[in-house]
């Protein structure tokens, strides 16, 4: 596996750079156009979730490890702040429209794009890991 590791501030200003780095890595290793179109957004949504919910927009640091080869890409986030809690709520777009509530879409995007999605807490740090296998 090829690896890229970065430590970035937990700031919305870094969503763009993380998105484009992920896009470039997918482009470099795969011709899976769907993965190229949607996977960078999933990575960005996880990072936005960390900034908003774990760090409550007060800043901090996020370590990001990209692992990629011709078969798959895996991105792992390691960070402090509040413990990750993911609600197990079934997504219902019609209900959200009726309630005029657009919250919770980010996690749904992540769930739909990931082949594997894991998260947890170890050694005083939270972690998220998302994996997407490339289709030919």
């Amino acid at each position: 596996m090829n690896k890229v590791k970065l430590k970035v501030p937990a700031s919305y200003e870094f969503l763009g750079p993380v998105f484009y780095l992920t896009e470039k890595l997918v482009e470099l290793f795969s011709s899976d156009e769907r993965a190229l179109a949607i996977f960078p957004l999933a990575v960005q949504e996880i990072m936005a979730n960390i900034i908003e919910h774990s760090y409550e927009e007060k800043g901090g640091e996020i370590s990001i490890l990209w692992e990629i080869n011709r078969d798959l890409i895996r991105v792992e986030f390691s960070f402090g702040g509040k413990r990750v809690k993911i609600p197990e709520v079934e997504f219902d777009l019609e209900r959200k429209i009726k309630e005029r509530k657009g919250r919770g879409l980010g996690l749904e995007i992540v769930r739909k794009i990931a082949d594997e999605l894991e998260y947890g807490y170890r050694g005083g740090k939270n972690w998220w890991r998302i994996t997407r296998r490339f289709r030919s």
Partner: protein
Amino acid sequence: MLEVKTEISQGVVFLRPRGRIDPLTVDDFERELERNIKEGRVKIILDCSELEYISSAGLGVLIGHIEEIREKGGDLVICCTTSRVYQIFDLLGFTRIYRFFPDIGAALRVFVDEQS
């Protein structure tokens, strides 16, 4: 970064976001949408031709306002030709609930035909 251009023609608002809609820029997009709704302009074409991507923050804005737009007799239709943006809309089921068009002319005809 994001720039949102607004044009009004034949009673229809063309919202043209250029760049990306994410948590950093979503307020600019929402402000422009709300301004038009508040001023009674509820026939809206969202032209995504220069939109690099839209994150959940932007999709949430569309969800939050569509009922109000339709209650006021309008609609927000989406003109989307770029594959990435369309795939994100499709992933969450927006293509079942919002009307999508491949070009501005087709989107505009919907409102013009409804007026006549």
